[in-house]
């Protein structure tokens, strides 16, 4: 197992190299000029040119890529063109809100979606099943920002139960931290819940047809243990796969959610950096997201062994 983990971690290196080259190339050919953004609307073309030169943006592609790649190898993500702060510091400032949002969303989504899917499968064909499926359709169809606005309007503006926006660090208290994240988590979790609920239902339906389920019923097992001890465990592998794949949805959704709820996370950092053409920040954040996603997939693969003892690496 340890050898497998090490092999998988080492395998991330070529993946990261490809991602780095792809991202760098894409930014190089994309239109936009950070020097023009820095200089502002009142600057002359000569000013813009001078700033471009001072940032090294007039150097050839290979020179720029080589310098950046060498810094990455040494663990230096570079310095933001705009803030003049290290990219690693900017990421460190923003990582807690995004991580908090993703964890709460994940827990919320799995905690709601899996039981929903199990009950829908159990009551297949009934109004409960149809209600779950209708909810799933809405979850896929309604954009995150629409859900976010509605939640903020109802629970923040009208009922005044929760804040409209912002983030409070965990170190300042669990209550305020959670208060700020619950609405964004619900907004972001909608599509995730829909996805997991549907997959859970589909997988459970298949498992509930198996002989060992009939045997368990015949032996007098109660419905709860049949559903959650016998069936769900055997349905877990595809569910865990979807949860892992869905992390990419979370990362993308976090960008919109953080903008709607003014959460100072990595999603907003990425959007701001893209709009400003802050190349080092864009490259650094995308590399980080890629690495996280690769790690998540590794964790998912390892979790398979928990649910299915036949799987061994």
């Amino acid at each position, binding site marked *: 197992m340890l050898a497998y983990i090490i092999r998988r971690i080492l395998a991330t290196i070529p993946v990261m190299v490809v991602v780095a080259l792809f991202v760098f190339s894409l930014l190089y050919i994309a*239109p*936009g*000029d*950070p020097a*023009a*953004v*820095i*200089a*502002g*609307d*009142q*600057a*002359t*073309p*000569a*000013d*813009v040119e*001078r*700033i471009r030169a*001072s940032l090294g943006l007039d150097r050839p592609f290979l020179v720029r890529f080589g310098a950046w790649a060498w810094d990455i190898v040494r663990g230096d993500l570079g310095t*933001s063109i*705009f*803030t*003049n*702060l290290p990219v690693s510091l*900017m990421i460190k*400032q*923003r990582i807690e809100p995004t991580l908090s949002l993703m964890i709460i969303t994940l827990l919320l989504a799995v905690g709601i979606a899996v039981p929903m899917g199990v009950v829908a499968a159990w009551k297949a064909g009934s109004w409960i099943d149809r209600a779950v499926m209708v909810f799933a359709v809405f979850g896929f169809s309604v954009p995150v920002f629409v859900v976010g*606005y509605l939640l*903020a*309007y109802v629970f*923040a*503006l009208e*009922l*005044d*139960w*929760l*804040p*409209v*926006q*912002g983030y409070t660090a965990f170190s300042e208290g669990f209550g305020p931290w959670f208060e700020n994240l619950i609405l964004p988590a619900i907004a972001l979790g909608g599509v995730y819940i829909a996805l997991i609920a549907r997959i859970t239902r589909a997988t459970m339906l298949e498992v509930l047809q198996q002989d060992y389920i009939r045997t368990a019923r015949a032996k007098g097992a109660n419905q709860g243990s049949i559903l959650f001890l016998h069936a769900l465990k055997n349905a877990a592998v595809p569910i865990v796969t979807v949860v892992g794949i869905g992390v990419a949805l979370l990362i993308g959704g976090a960008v919109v959610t953080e*903008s*709607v*709820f*003014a959460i*100072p996370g990595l999603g*907003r*950092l990425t*959007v*701001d950096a893209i*709009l*400003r*053409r*802050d190349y080092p920040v864009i490259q650094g954040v995308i590399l980080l997201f890629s690495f996280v996603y690769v790690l998540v997939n590794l964790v998912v693969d390892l979790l398979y062994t928990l649910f299915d003892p036949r799987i061994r690496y």
Partner: protein
Amino acid sequence: MDRRTFLKASAGIGALASTGGLSAPALAQGAAARTLRFVPQANLANFDPIWGTQYVVRNASVLVWDTLYGVDDKLEPQRQMVESEEVSADGLTWTFKLREGLRFHDGERVLAKDCVASLARWCVRDGMGQMIRAIQEELVAVDDRSFRWRLKSPYPKMLLALGKNNTPMAFIMPERLARTDPFQQITEFVGSGPMRFARNEWVPGARSVFTKFDQYQPRREPASWLAGGKRMLVDRIEWHIMPDPATASGALQNGEVDWWETPLTDLIPTLRRNRNIAVDIADPLGNIGSFRFNHLHPPFSDVRARRAVQMALSQEDYMRAVVGDDNNMWRLLPSFFTPETPLYTEAGGEPLKGPRNIDAAKRLLAEAGYSGQPITVLVAQDQAPLKAMGEVTNALLRSLGMNVDFVATDWGTVGQRRSMKNPPGQGGWHIFHTWHAGADCVNPAAYLALRANGEQAWFGWPSSAEVEAARDRWFAATTLDQEKAAVADMNRAAMQHVTYIPNGFYLGYQAWRRNVTGVVKAPIPFFWGVAKS
């Protein structure tokens, strides 16, 4: 008291009662009353007002750095850091003396050598500074409180240059910071302004914090824009960046922020209905919309083609698209200069007055040789006013029978592409939109967009000797009448040349909680005199 506060207070009181500590809520309320939470117009991503000349950087910088002079609400430069000035009879030697007791945030005295270094850095990047630098003989510190600027020829606009609110302003920094290359960022944010920048709390793109500088010595005069006594009535100012206007609106209504600099026009009715919120005009100097041509390539290299568009363009169409149906928020503008300012003129503005003449415009366009080639219009979709202007332009050009290549993109791409002098079919452009702050258009001093010095001009590269000559006459003018005459000539020449087309004058709103007092209408959000109960 609302439900959430009641629940929290009950839980808090319950918890505190068990420990015997019940005084915290009162302390917390006091601290909240001394903290002003502000939503700025844009992200404060960097904080060097000489290196980065965006308006948001300037707006934050006036808190941290002070200037030798500052314009008042009549746009007249008044002494700020300076105690007195002397100018020789021939206008060639300026000697400035600093007020006593000025300190930087690190405790050091503000000295003349700091002013010399700061002005030297500012001169490289600022238009008026460049003019002064071109005629400079020497800029030296005479003693700790005085410095001298000797010129080769008179520069009557010296005090305006040092006190103007147009970016980059002539901020005074410690010498060690001012020696930074003007094309590199400073690494410390130390000034002598009324607030310190709390760098350890800065999260670029999310939050900036300023704390009161207790050693600041405001002038005795009442505050008036950048002039007078800058008395801070709050201890802490937090800038919260909120990219989503609906979120900012909700936060203001919920009392989570106190003052919003640029609310979206569409949200104003909702804010007005909230009895805890006040709404008013933000900046009486407003904005001038800009329809910008590329003068280098056909058809708009021919003045007849530009005049054709000028005679067909309806400013009302543009303004209604930008600000909606509130007629108090816009006006027609047959001028390049800001209305209701001392130098405002409509000389030569006839082409923008009266009914529009599409047929005559089509004939003129044909005369200019337009034969159906695509007209590349760059339209930034992420800037609401520019998106609206682009839609109107699309309809206007099509009504003239033009073939429009509508490039819907983001402002960053417009910023890059507009600098390209290639032909439009090879990555260049014919038209883009922007707007100019009215404060930048009150006179030719910082009005880069009205320059017509050809290849050295602003994007579009208009070339007109008459416009430049009039501009030079304004800089040389020593009386208001001379200035007015020069500006009228400049306006007339620019209208005839169609340097660009002003597509209207419009205002914007600001909104704040009613427990905040002292908010004034100005081109910069001024925090001195603002209190919170």
